[in-house]
């Protein structure tokens, strides 16, 4: 089986975050989807992320490890959460992604993990 990252992309258009009442149905749909993924044996890991304002970036510069407050890029969009799933092929991964994007009402990017060639 291959592994895929399904990442949820949220647009930073300056609009205020949705009120709790709007978020609740999303949580419920996502929770239901997570149960389905687990029951199918496709689950590896998943979680929602706190907003980019809570991020910290760590990098090496001139031989030193530096720390900065905030996301890597003040961009037009950020990742709101992700699933890591197991699937036989891209069609299977895309089928989960279709359910994921309906559940969280945001675009979901599907990317394959590199396979490890072990000894």
């Amino acid at each position, binding site marked *: 089986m291959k592994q895929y990252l399904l990442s949820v992309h949220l647009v930073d258009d300056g609009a205020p975050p949705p009120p709790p009442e709007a978020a609740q149905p999303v949580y419920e749909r996502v929770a239901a989807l997570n149960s389905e993924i687990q029951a199918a044996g496709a689950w590896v890991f998943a979680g929602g992320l706190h907003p980019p304002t809570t991020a910290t970036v760590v990098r090496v510069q001139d031989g030193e490890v530096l720390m900065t407050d905030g996301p890597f890029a003040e961009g037009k969009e950020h990742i709101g959460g992700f699933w890591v799933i197991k699937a036989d092929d*891209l069609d299977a*991964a895309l089928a989960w992604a279709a359910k994921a994007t309906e559940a969280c009402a945001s675009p979901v990017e599907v*990317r394959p993990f590199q396979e490890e060639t072990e000894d």
Partner: protein
Amino acid sequence: MPPVDQTAIEQVFRAEYGRAVAVLVRVFGDIDLAEESVQDAFTVAAARWPSDGMPPSPAGWIITTARNRAIDRLRREASRNDRHAQARLLHGYDEPPEEVVAVRDDRLRLIFTCCHPALNQRAQVALTLRLLGGLETPEIARAFLVPEATMSKRLTRTKAKIAAAGIPYRVPPAHLLPERTAGVLAVLYLMFNEGYSASAGERLIRAPLCVEAIRLARLLRALMRDEPEASGLLALMLLQHSRRGARLDESGDIVTLEEQDRSRWDSDEIDEATALLRSALRRRAPGPYQLQAAIAACHAEAPNPAATDWPQIAALYELMLQLTPSPVVRLNRAVAVAMAEGLDAGLALVDELAEQGTLTDYHLLEATRADLHRRRGDRTAAIAAYHRALDAARTEPERRFILRRLAEQNDRR
């Protein structure tokens, strides 16, 4: 065996490339390995066949030789650490020599893989031409008027995505088959149109796309006998292709359907198309390609423009609207209604469509309106519409056509 000439060998290569690659992809699960092995086999054939003669089954010979070359390659590349190469090697040994029957499914699998919706359409078209059409990268680049390096990158990236993302090598399962089949048909039709709509200057280098698209449509039809839309697509292509000798004049300008010299239409292609269409329609599962072909057949069967069965065409557009309710189809229906029931009736429909605002970006809206005004003899309205059409024209031949019409209108005083 009789001696063989270079042309005959090249023809065999072109005809058998797709089949050989398809089988090898199934056996080894790797498109690059499949292509390289088949090309190796061709190199051997090109060296040996001129003197040894062509083997009784060239396809079988190529597949067997390619398979052996692939195994050799994998042996060289497989190290203790490369489990993937080892797995492929074992799989290649286990597979028995191919039966011709099995090969039919392999090419169908390959077409669906090339046309997977996770690939963008340009990538789908390029890869289909390469793997199933057997066209070389420079040929494909020329046909699409892009530099060879661009096309090479496109093909490499596409094959890399298939491997990395795990696009499965299979005919899609039943629940996905309708939408995936529609995707394949769209790719082949796009390929055809790229060749068919080429300007006079481009025609020589782009016309092979038509030939290739028709060849692949024939293959698809043979591989999907239960799918009447595959026959519909082939019929549509043949009907359009039949007019290629009449649609441009000596200066490379557009000749409308009405003005075309119908004696220059290819009657063999028309006959083949109408037979295909008839048998497809008998299955009572009409689809957009069958309907478009039926409309094209109405034109093809009319010995002259006045004999065109416009009421039938209008009825066919109505059927199409039930399947694909698009504004463009509505516009085309309006034209058919104009010809069948009267220009004012048609014009009213066109004006209604224009008001709805769904066609503002459609470059043929004003040209259509202008033409109807022209037929009605309303010079002022025609000229105004032609000027708007000029603004929307997208190609040089289109512009010249509209300017010609404008000149005609201005001459009428």
